[in-house]
């Protein structure tokens, strides 16, 4: 069974530029999560989807971050414009039940 797929794995951009991350969850997993992990810290939830619906986006900085999950499968997370403080690893996870399965993450560096 294929795991959670994320791309790109690494991204370097200059501040004020836009950036997008893509996630393909495990087949059949209706719940999808986007997390941000800063260096030396645990993951922090940005947004959670149940199928196409964003059921928890309370921690998503909506002035610059947006996400979508069309058709309830793949998802994209966008930052526009990026700031220096957005440098982090962005993790996607999916679940069907209590356990989340994580992708390898996208490491973002904003210069």
């Amino acid at each position, binding site marked *: 069974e294929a795991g*959670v797929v*994320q791309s790109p794995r690494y991204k370097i951009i200059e501040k004020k530029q836009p950036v997008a991350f893509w996630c393909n969850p495990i087949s059949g997993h209706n719940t999808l*999560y986007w997390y941000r992990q800063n260096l*030396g*810290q*645990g*993951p*922090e*939830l940005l947004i*959670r989807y149940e199928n196409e619906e964003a*059921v*928890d986006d309370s921690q998503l900085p909506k002035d610059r971050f947006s996400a979508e999950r069309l058709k309830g499968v793949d998802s994209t997370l966008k930052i526009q414009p990026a700031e220096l403080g957005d440098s982090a690893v962005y*993790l996607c*996870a999916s679940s069907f039940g*209590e*356990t*989340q*399965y*994580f*992708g*390898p*993450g996208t*490491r973002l560096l904003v210069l």
Partner: protein
Amino acid sequence: AQSVTQLDSQVPVFEEAPVELRCNYSSSVSVYLFWYVQYPNQGLQLLLKYLSGSTLVESINGFEAEFNKSQTSFHLRKPSVHISDTAEYFCAVRTSYDKVIFGPGTSLSVIP
């Protein structure tokens, strides 16, 4: 509000020695408990989980954790560590409201 505490940010231990990584949580509702491991430049991998039933849970690579409701703890232990166990370990709590909270992580370094 729920929270997860991992008191030890770094734990160095000699190869073949025992190790315990501590995790405490606060929650007013029932929880599920997880330990994830993260190797360098990789995503988080599930190590073990407690959902219900026996309070002692084990992983396939020799780790175990015990859910202690009275002490609100879920400490991770291994009787003899290997070099390959060097990684970051995260404790996580999931409530019945589907909120998942991660601890700050403990960096385990196994010394040859």
